[in-house]
């Protein structure tokens, strides 16, 4: 079995941790000693994160119903906490796995340390730590397959956002929807992760250019069962794009009203819709670079 991989990236500042499907890029800011100690803590915690998670996978892959399952691992508890408020929709705690790992690793990174700020990027799901006066600038991508920064937003200490996540049909996880990218800002990465997944699922419409297949045909262990997941999205007319984005915005709006998210940015084809408290300058439309097959 492969062991967790640890290394610094070429800039010598960012820590890269990889184990199985978890791929983290961590950057901490502060004194050299504190950053070094924080990285060491993260490394030690990383030894056990995936093993702990794997033990409870069978529970975490089950759809939520009104009986909250009992899980013990700290990451698994974060997943349930994040998924629980959404249980009226079909979902499993796996919808929050990437964000929860980022949050859990963040707590290990910070434990007893004195850092100025830090972020942990788990393949696009990001946990953030800020102290007074500190900000973190984020790029927002409109299209996961050919990622380019289309807009930016700045997170600040005095605002509640500590988690950012992006989901779309071309991302690493199967999506029921057709969104190119849904980016969500929330209190933590786990909450952002689950919300981004569900909003991306909701960005949907019927159109012959959309190819779908049962999730179970793609992946035996998919927590989505026989639900139809998106495998390709061809050319769509403006009405369909409008309708799909509207469906997504409706779901995002309900989450915003319930206080589950702070903001959401939805991108489909060249259209962009934003909702909530977004301190960002966003373009009217997204320039999708170098890719014409959607």
């Amino acid at each position, binding site marked *: 079995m492969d062991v967790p*991989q640890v290394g610094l990236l070429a800039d010598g500042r960012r820590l890269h941790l990889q184990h199985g499907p978890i791929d983290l890029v961590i950057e901490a800011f502060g004194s050299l000693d504190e950053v070094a100690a924080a990285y060491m803590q993260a490394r030690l915690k990383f030894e056990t994160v995936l093993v702990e998670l794997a033990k409870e996978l069978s529970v975490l892959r089950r759809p939520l119903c009104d009986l909250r399952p009992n899980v013990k691992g700290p990451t698994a508890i974060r997943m349930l906490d994040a998924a629980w408020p959404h249980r009226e929709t079909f979902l499993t705690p796996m*919808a929050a796995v990437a964000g929860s790992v980022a949050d859990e690793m963040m707590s290990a990174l910070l434990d007893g340390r004195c850092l100025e700020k830090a972020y942990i990027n788990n393949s696009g799901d990001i946990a953030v730590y800020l102290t007074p006066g500190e900000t973190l600038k984020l790029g927002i991508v409109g299209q996961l397959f050919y990622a380019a920064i289309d807009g930016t937003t700045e997170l600040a200490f005095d605002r509640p956002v500590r988690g950012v996540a992006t989901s779309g049909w071309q991302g690493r996880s199967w*999506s029921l929807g057709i969104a190119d990218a849904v980016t969500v800002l929330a209190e933590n990465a786990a909450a952002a992760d689950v919300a981004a997944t569900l909003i991306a699922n909701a960005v949907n419409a019927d159109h012959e250019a959309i190819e779908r297949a049962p999730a179970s045909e793609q*992946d035996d262990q998919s927590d989505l069962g026989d639900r139809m997941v998106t495998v390709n999205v061809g050319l769509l007319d403006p009405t369909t794009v409008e309708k799909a984005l509207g469906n997504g915005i409706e779901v995002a709006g309900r989450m915003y009203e319930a206080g589950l998210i702070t903001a959401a940015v939805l991108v489909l084809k060249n259209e962009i819709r934003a909702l909530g408290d977004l301190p960002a300058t966003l373009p009217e439309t997204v320039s999708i670079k*170098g890719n014409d097959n959607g």
Partner: protein
Amino acid sequence: MSQKTEAKAEGASGIKAGDVKDDGVITCDACPVLCRIRPEKTGACSRYGNVNGKLTRTDPVIVTQQISDENGGLVPFLPEQEDWDGSMNFQSPSFITGIGATTTYPDYKPAPFIVSSEHHDVDMVTVVSEGVFSYCGVKVKIDTDRFIGPESAPVRVKGEKIGHVTTAEYGSQMLALGGVHHLTGGAKKEGNVTCQSMLSLCNKDRVEMTIDGGATLTVQAGEPPIIDTNQEERMRVGCGSAAIGMFALQWHGHADEVIVVDDHITGVLSEHQSGKFLDMPSAGIRVRGRRSTPGRYFQVAEPGAGWGGTDITEPLSIIESIDPDVAWAGLRLLMVSTTGEDQAYFILDDDLKPVPAEMPADLETSVDRIAENCEPALSTVLFMGGAGGSLRAGVTVNPVLLTRSVRELRTRVTCGGAPVYVWPGGGITVMVDVLRLPNDSFGYVPTPALVAPIEFSMSREEYLALGGYEDHIKPLTDVIREGGLHGVQPMAWQGNNPWPLAERMALEDT
């Protein structure tokens, strides 16, 4: 949500053991998630996949390194855990290969890796890709003199035609396999079997094939061929008659008769033209079989696994008679096979019976020399593919300039770091010895077509002159640290391959 798996068979490398189920699903044991992976899918990490029922690291980019330290070890890839101060300790000369680089589609997108590195203060650019070779074939050379089948006879795997027997070459039989007509010009099954057979051969795996009107062959690059049930060991030095011609002078004066036992033609020195030329007296020893010309005998025994490809294990059994009027007591007789593997020395006693005796040193030297001149019989596999098509668009906006640069030897082409022969004429049609590539360098796409790593290396100046994608050039150190889509795997440079970034590459190629 559920992790996405992608059907990505190309660029497979680093086979690991996995638990294969009846339905072809593998349980990956690479990490604690223990994904169940369906055929041609990857696990949650997309780093491991089920390729032909084998759990396979899908596509780390392979970076090969020259050995730099005295112990012949690699410089550690990742910083030591206690010592991660950010300093680069990846100092061995490194070359990024196309293995695991993945491919781009459509082709006009820049190749996955356009990498710069310095070589003796010259800024070199290597454009790395995994090319999808719709036009590709495999040439197999089988070191054997045995008849494997008539020229142009179809070669089949699982009953499907995958190629044919082509013209025999020195000491060997040749096969031409694959090619676009078998891949995509015939039935779907023919194409798939052809693709899988080529893939196996290129990845140094064993393939069993049959030849219409000929033999059953088991072929594996770098291994002795198995023809029907016989495994070839050595290429013989020549037939028995040829061996006599080659070694007569070295035997003259040390033996009164030499019999070279061979399934094709057994040679008898004193009768042979070579012996006559040396004025050797006739020894009166008559071997079995049918005499062709003086000193050359067909069918002295049945074919088999004994001396010289015959069925005999007791050499004296091929002697039919010893003429008492011609032979003499004390006559020195050497018997040897055409590979030198079997040898015996006799002296005739007073009754003219051959009695085993210790072989004189001079004869022993000559016998050893026969063996020394027999090369091991191998099957060798050359991959041949055309990189002159749309693949070039991933390198430059003006593809024909790349073709010209390759032709004029300003751009060096390698496959997985291995040197290639670029066939003259139009296009960039390359041939490469698959043994020079790391294991499992080849993949396939369902088209069907083979996927092979390919690298174009040139000076930065040349790359820009070709209309290269300057904005996409990345320093090698960044690529190594950040990895490709699925990480970077270091690998020791194969010492028998010339370093692709060597200066004055044009002159070195010949």
